[in-house]
């Protein structure tokens, strides 16, 4: 139980605009010590009398075990609906109930003798968990290269962080307002070739993760992908955040991205079938549906 998630009555320490996003720092003691790159937190939103029923899940951007006010957790959010809109405008001291760290984090290379080359790919604010990962990789002697992409320059997140940590940083935007005009996968083959990539880590929209998985596979590399599925609880009880994933036994199951993910080996996720229950899935309806 000591390494499981905690439920902490946290408080807002600060909120800050970063381009199109909001960077939220919460005082939430105890969570930082347990957090590894790729973990996420589930936040209650709207305050004590809120009509907002469901938790909002966010990748952990940074943690600090020794903040001035106690351990802190930092997340990056985009305003999509009522819950994120509420979080984005809270003042310091607003109570926010925090559950975390949740999920399975990124796997780090076991081989620390040889300098493993890791390529990290982030789409939009999906890049948030990749910076702590980059630090962990670098402390293991890994080479780190970043590819960051977004629709436009204001939707990139963490380019300066990346430049501080990585051997190279490639930036793409759909509209060409920063870096190369195009998608992350337009530049990824070049980056992987130059870096002699051994492993790819990716976080961002499903379509990007699918494309990154395909590019990595062409070089014989497995991409570890952190998926962004909508969740009601974040702790494994609601069964809403499922997607079709192939297990070690070759069977497809609808697995929970909150407890079995959010990080999956990209070659195990049936990307084309996300949003469906593909035929042959364990327990899939045989005739007439269910």
């Amino acid at each position, binding site marked *: 139980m000591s390494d499981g998630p905690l439920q902490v009555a946290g408080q807002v320490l600060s909120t800050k605009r970063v381009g199109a996003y909001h960077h939220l720092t919460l005082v939430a003691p105890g969570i930082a010590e347990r957090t590894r790159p790729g973990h996420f937190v589930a936040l209650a939103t709207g305050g004590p009398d809120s009509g907002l029923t469901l938790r909002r899940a966010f990748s952990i951007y940074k943690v600090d075990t020794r903040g001035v006010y106690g351990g802190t957790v930092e997340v990056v959010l985009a305003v999509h609906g009522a819950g994120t809109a509420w979080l984005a405008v809270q003042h310091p001291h607003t109570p926010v109930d925090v559950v975390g760290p949740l999920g399975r984090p990124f796997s780090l290379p076991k081989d620390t003798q040889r300098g493993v080359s890791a390529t990290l790919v982030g789409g939009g604010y999906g890049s948030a968990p990749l910076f702590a990962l980059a630090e962990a990789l670098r402390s293991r002697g890994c080479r780190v290269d970043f590819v960051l992409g977004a629709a436009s320059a204001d939707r990139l997140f963490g380019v300066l962080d990346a430049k501080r940590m990585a051997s190279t940083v490639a930036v793409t935007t759909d509209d060409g307002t920063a870096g190369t005009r195009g998608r992350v996968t337009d530049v990824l083959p070049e980056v992987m070739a130059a870096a002699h990539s051994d492993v790819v880590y990716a976080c961002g929209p499903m379509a990007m993760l699918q494309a990154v998985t395909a590019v990595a596979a062409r070089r014989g590399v497995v991409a570890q992908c952190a998926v962004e599925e909508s969740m009601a609880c974040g702790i494994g009880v609601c069964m809403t955040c*499922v997607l079709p994933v192939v297990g070690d036994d070759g069977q497809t*199951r609808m697995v929970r991205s909150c407890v079995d993910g959010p990080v999956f080996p990209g070659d195990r996720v049936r990307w084309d079938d996300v949003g469906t229950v593909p035929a042959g899935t364990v*327990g899939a309806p045989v005739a007439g549906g269910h």
Partner: protein
Amino acid sequence: MSFHVRTVEPPRVEAPHIDLTARLGDVVLPNPVLTASGCAAAGRELAQFFDVADLGAVVTKSIMLAARSGRATPRMAETASGMLNSIGLQGPGIDAFLEHDLPWLHEHGARTVVSIAGGSVEEYAELARRLRGAPGMLALEVNISCPNVENRGLVFACDPDAAAAVVGAVRRHTAPAVPVLAKLSPDVTDIVSIARACVDAGADGLSMINTLLGMALDLDTMRPVLAGVTGGLSGRAIKPVAVRCIWQVHAALPQVPILGMGGVASGRDAVELVLAGASAVSVGTAIFHDPSAPVRVLAELTEVLDARGFTTLADAVGHAHRQ
């Protein structure tokens, strides 16, 4: 600026001056707060946040004979003070449940109410047979009211004869000491007639309410939000419906124990259901918002009863009818 932040400790769950003993048929629970089926999986995940043995009982997610994938995603939509879900009874099937889930609950001291669901009377009967004598099972909840089935005609709880057929079959195949609770749907014209049919067929108690059938449209796509099109509405939005159903059934069948659920997120909510006639209360969707909600509700319920001068939970059951 200073920040005083605490880890959420599970609240004290027993106030010594109130007898919280709850009775569901022949079964006696140390307190009246349970989880609601489908909101607590099979207990394991919640054990990270509190001791599952502290609850009156854990009610498991409805189990079927075979493993079941459930429906496609999106499976949920948040609505005003509630949510719609369209899970479609995803689960591992009875074999895996008996091998892994029920033993885990038993080992961790949880009293367990096993919820079962089937597509036919025979499937329910077979589930009851398979569960007969299973260690740790305190009672059976017969989910005859899941709205997330392909054919609404299969919702047994919408028809008194179909409901009675299922309940009767389960009762016949269940050990006499194990109470059988029929879980009812509020989506009926006359819930009392369904309740009566279930009791006449041998139900020892009634669980109410299941979710209400609902639907939400996405104004960007102008299509249904849920892949399954319709889903079950739960959360605080439905509490008044739960209170009404419990009130009506308790008025008509005062001797039949009711396990109340529907929008319980606080001790006040729980007490409202108790006053309407519930002998015990399940906490469901509130768990998604607050994983320690069941133990919090229990602590709050104790205070709410105490503040109203009750010394036993039993005195509060149905109290609103006697005022």
